[in-house]
């Protein structure tokens, strides 16, 4: 596995051009904007129970993190 430094200066254990290293292209949308209500979704949690986002949130503030994978 070759380690290469990208144009941002970051090292990663994959060659440049590897699809896993692709960044957010210029001007690409980043989903709902500030001031918009987040769309609802229903997804299973770690125990397989389906979670409805807004319902589970109740009246609480929330932080929603999209990350790439827990596997790799």
């Amino acid at each position: 596995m070759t380690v290469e430094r990208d144009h941002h200066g970051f090292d990663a254990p994959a060659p440049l051009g590897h699809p896993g290293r692709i960044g957010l292209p210029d001007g690409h949308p980043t989903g709902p904007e500030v001031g918009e209500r987040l769309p609802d979704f229903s997804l299973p949690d770690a125990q397989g129970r389906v979670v409805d986002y807004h319902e589970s949130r109740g009246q609480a503030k929330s932080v929603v993190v999209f990350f790439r994978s827990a596997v790799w």
Partner: protein
Amino acid sequence: MLSEFAEKQNIPYRLLSDIDSEAIRDYGILNDEIGREDAFLEGIPYPGVYVTDEEGVVVAKFFHDTYKLRDSPEMLIDAALGRLVASDDARQASGGDEEVRISAFIHGGKGTIRQGIIRQLVIRCELAEGMHIYGDRVPEGMVPTTVSVSGPPGLIVEAPIFPATETLRLESMNMELSVWSGVVDIVVPFYPVGLLASETRPLDMDSAGIEVEVRYQACSDSSCFPPKTAKLALTVDLDVIDVPRLGVHLGHGQRAGKFNSMPHMRRLILRKLRKYPLGLPRFVWKNIRLEAAAKWRSLMGS
């Protein structure tokens, strides 16, 4: 697998699995530069964070042009609360004088830094009663407040973020000035890149020195002190990461928690293979080409 992952990584918050990228697509953040020919990589989002209020309305969002750049969790909490919550045990330095007491501290993490994770240097100016310092609209001959922050090569320091100024009207001189008074927090985001804190080779040094210079001029409504420059220095520790044994599927987070992702990786690959059998061979072939190109570049460079 998420329950094991959460347990080994000590993750207290809820993890959800968007196995068919439904929510990711619905949000419009599917990484569409990665296709089914990229096998198990297909379906990932552009990573990012939304912070909402009680109604579920976005109050802040954090996306960057590279997945390597991530905000410290403290910044997400600050965004949710709408104020900066400093840690009591943050690394700190102080300076200034009686009119303006200046301190600088690291916000985010435990005073440590690692590749791509954004921390904040907070420069706190505490002004004596009746004193102000200037924003960028200054009277002739006066000095606006500026900060400069420097560190070792490989420490990227972003532009300082100043709070909003107040308007000070001086009737006698028919002037409007932009000033700060009271407690002024100037925030400077920074992060190390591979040169300073690579996660693929052992560290060259275990801490980094950061130098801060604040230039300001303190005035009351009737008189001014001469301009001054305060210099502060502090150090941050670099997170030690277990290198070098590194596989592409084993980020340092996985290793730290002794989470073995291989069985899950196999299942993921099989699931993607069933949907598109050519995905894996095409991905493997692409990797061979990319590796060869990288070897060539390294030969040419050395």
